[in-house]
């Protein structure tokens, strides 16, 4: 036993040294072989890039309607059967987790162009268009209304980034240009907060157009360019914004 106890560690060391030499020799003689299906992680591949953002909670319900509801959508059906992309600004829209998401496959549309999604079979003349918005990033996002081949109105909201640019624009979009009708000073409205649901609303009554965020009116202008037409939501195509609970109420004409 004594003999064996003395020999065991010596033999173990010997064997380990042989194993080490064999390992080195094998690697040197065979070079690097990548097993099929293997991925080699860089030693720092799993370093933390920080805390992941929280998963968005369910969007708050809209307040009680105050006028006849012409259209409402909570995306619980998981499809976009009642929607269509605007051909001139298609984007990449999808329904995921009961929400509408632009850039659901962000890779397919990595551009800064506008993406517009409009509700089928509904026209808005006078009334209210509203939606819950969950923006990511600071780029433009908002609502479109009174749209036709002649053009449409676009409410563009920007994130509350620390600059003095206007964070809310009302624009007239036609085939040839995008014209600013009104821009809200940053002192009036600092911009939306990313990673948070907020209710955005447009009210149209004749030539008067008002816009609000979470019941705070940020814009109140008059314009007569467009009187009726389709309505919907829009987003800069690359910003992965989410919408939910879209609703159109009509207070006057329309069908």
């Amino acid at each position, binding site marked *: 036993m004594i003999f064996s106890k003395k020999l065991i560690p010596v033999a*173990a060391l010997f064997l380990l040294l042989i194993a080490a030499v064999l390992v080195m020799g094998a690697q040197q003689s065979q070079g690097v072989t990548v097993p099929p299906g293997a991925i080699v992680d860089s030693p*720092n591949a799993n370093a933390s890039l920080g805390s992941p953002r929280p998963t968005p909670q369910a969007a708050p319900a809209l307040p009680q309607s105050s006028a006849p509801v012409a259209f409402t959508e909570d995306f619980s059906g998981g499809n976009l059967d009642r929607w269509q992309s605007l051909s001139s600004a298609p984007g990449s829209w999808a329904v995921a987790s009961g929400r509408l998401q632009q850039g659901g496959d*962000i890779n397919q549309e990595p551009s800064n162009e506008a993406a517009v999604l409009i509700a089928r079979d509904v026209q808005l003349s006078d009334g209210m268009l509203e939606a819950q918005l969950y923006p*990511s990033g600071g780029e433009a996002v908002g609502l479109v209304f009174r749209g036709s081949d002649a053009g449409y109105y676009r409410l563009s909201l920007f994130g509350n980034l620390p600059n003095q640019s*206007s964070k809310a624009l009302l624009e007239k979009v036609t085939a040839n240009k995008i014209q600013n009708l009104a821009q809200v000073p940053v002192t009036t409205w600092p911009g939306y907060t990313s990673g948070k649901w907020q209710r955005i609303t447009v009210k149209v009554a004749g030539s008067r157009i008002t816009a609000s965020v979470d019941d705070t009116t940020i814009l109140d202008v008059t314009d007569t360019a467009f009187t009726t037409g389709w309505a919907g939501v829009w987003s800069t195509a690359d910003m992965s914004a989410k919408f939910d609970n879209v609703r159109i109420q009509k207070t006057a004409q329309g069908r």
Partner: protein
Amino acid sequence: MKNRFNLVMLAGLSLILIVAASDMSIAPGGPPSAKAAASISAPVETPFSAPIDVTNSPLYDNGGAIGASPLDGSVTIAWEQRDQENNRNLINAATNSPFRGDFFPQNLDLTTYKASGNVKIAHDALGRRHIAFYTYSSGDAAIQYVRIEANGQISVNEVIPGSGGLKLASVAVGPDNTPHFLLGKDNSKIRYFHRQDNGNWDVVNEVVTPDVVNQGQGDVSIAVNTNGLVMAAWKGPGPASNDIFAATRTGSGSWAKEDISFECCQGCPTASRTYLPSLTADRTGGFRVSWSDEKCDPRPYPDSVSNDIYYREWVPGTGWNNQPLVRVVNSFGHSYQNNLVVDDNNVSHIIWTDTTDSPNGSPQIWYSYGSGTNFSPPEKPFTGWAGGAYLKDMGMDVSPGYVDIVFGSNRDDSQKENYYAYKSIGPVAPPPTPTPIAGPPPCANEYFKDVCRDGGTAPFYTAILNLVNANIISGYNTVPPCPNSSWVPCYLPFNPVTRGQVAKIIALGANLPANLQGAPHFVDVPPGSTFYNYVEYNFNAGTISGYPCGTQPNEPCGPPNNPNNLPYFRPGANVTRGQLSKILSIAFGYNEPATNRQSFQDVPVTSTFYSYIDRLVRRGIIGGYPCGGPGEPCLPPANLPYFRPGNNITRGQVAKVVYIARQQPVATATSTSTATPVPTLTATSTPVISATVTPEMTATTLPTSTSTAVETSTAVATVTTVATLTATAVPPTVTATATPAVVNVSLINTTFDPMSITVAAGTTVLWTNNDTRAHTVTSDPGDPVSFDSGNIPVGQTFQYTFTVPGTYGYHCQYHGGPGTGMYGTVTVTP
């Protein structure tokens, strides 16, 4: 004892771990590593600079592409600027030159068409910027190509022929400084284009893959390695969703395609979705690529896709084989939009965006460097910079000692601005010796497998084959020097040529007499040696000489090896451009008086090689390099090009100049004077033909140059111009008292108007610069008489009186060349 046993076991185990761990840190190509700390040779000395607002405009500025000059580190940024009030997009470019960090925008509206982004830039070794973007030139999409010279002039601005309907562009520059393009569009095939420097699009719409692929913007990438091998990479349909593919161009119309991301989707739980390959060449004949990949991510981000950044290297000889698929970053968020560059120390630098640690959900920029399987811990250079930084918004390049990036952000302006930042990556090591390529040959269908009809070797193609057919040159039939058996025969056109080889080429090419009189003349080219006959023919023809013995330790005089004290020829030494000019000029019998007009900044008329180079240039046999390169400043007013007489001439170049010389009319060896032709001028001579210029001032009647003539010449301030005049044969019938007519030519809109004129001998042509920029009026090589205005500022004039009948081509040195760009002709009738 038990404790001791454990200690021994522990020591043994440690030894194995040490062995394994030490091997892990070896890059490139180490085995799969665990989470051991990486040991990466750090090239980084400073953090990124604070971003500098490049655009600062009220318009919507999408970040774009960036190219850094290898000459001075100046950076050019090109980007899309959206003028949505006028529904018009512009492509602008700005350069900071030459001060890094001090950005001096030099905005250039590169297109008046409606344009989109997807701007790409590649810098060449001459400091030229090659820019590609998609535009609507005539209602349909197409790719536009712009080339900006090192001096900031736009020399090329054209829609790529055959690119109609294409929207995706990638551009790279090869060792010959010509641009290669990979173009495509969604649901179509990827095509390859190449433009030669003479403006010829020698490859148009060459299909790279028969697959019809669905690409996103930017999903094509092209690179050219240090050996001129072209590689394309793209996102294509794979076994599961899509993969990254790469293909090398093995010949005209022939591409060898491989799925380089396939392996990692085997056994992965998630679908294979790959995007945005960023392909680049390294400094040793290899390629490197990174891309964004969704598959195998065990932590899909809860409300979005979760891509990671992957990386792989292509090594000369074995290609992609055995090169691991390296995951550089495995994040919760969406790692995307990677850009990869390789610095002069062969270190890879990658930037990408990731949405993990984002206060407002917008992507943040991350950076890592490394090679093989080792990359540094990701760092976020710009904390607090919100806003988008997307595909069209981020670019990266590298220049000696620096990494430069551009990105778009709406932090300071909701309409976005472009920002530039850089970081020092430390001193630059000498470039490693390129590894001979051992992959497939670039032109498998040609006689020489490395001399193609198109691409970088095209300029030599005809010349080499012609000389081969004439049994003047031959290539190599062995490995080495050919890289492998599939390259046999090869010519190695970019290798330097030796003095022995030149002796053979010149002897056969110029058909020198087989004269062995007095041989042997050189101790190191004895009878029976490979080049013996050719060297002796050259010596007896006066084309070459040797080096006296005793000047080098290994070139002794006297016995035992050199009892007759013969000079040495050094047959294995390389040949410079200046030396070859002399050899060629003498061999082909060019011995007319030189013009005494300096054509190259680095070849003064006092240069040993001046007259020989002058004769070749006038015949169009050899040319130079535009000024502006490293150590080659443009010196106004002439801004002469450089000849680089001390540079080695390559095998391809030798073939080309000998071929051209053989196409020339046979020179007559009847000239009476070989002296510098500056004779008989008097102090009253002026640059303009005047009464003092007499009919006897012809080349054939001039006396041998004398010291008096030289003294007289140096006493005249305008000697160079005078010498130019006297070097030409002024017909005796032209009298000094003739009053020449004047014909006007306007320099306007970067053209000569009229472009072509015909005048009688003795007519003075007056060029007036009515344009908004400076120009020159410079005769073409080979004209009967040379003339050069030097710089003509706006509103100024230049005149020249044509006395010798013939056809004169001329051009603006800034905006044209012989027969191209801004050029014109003058036909002088007797």
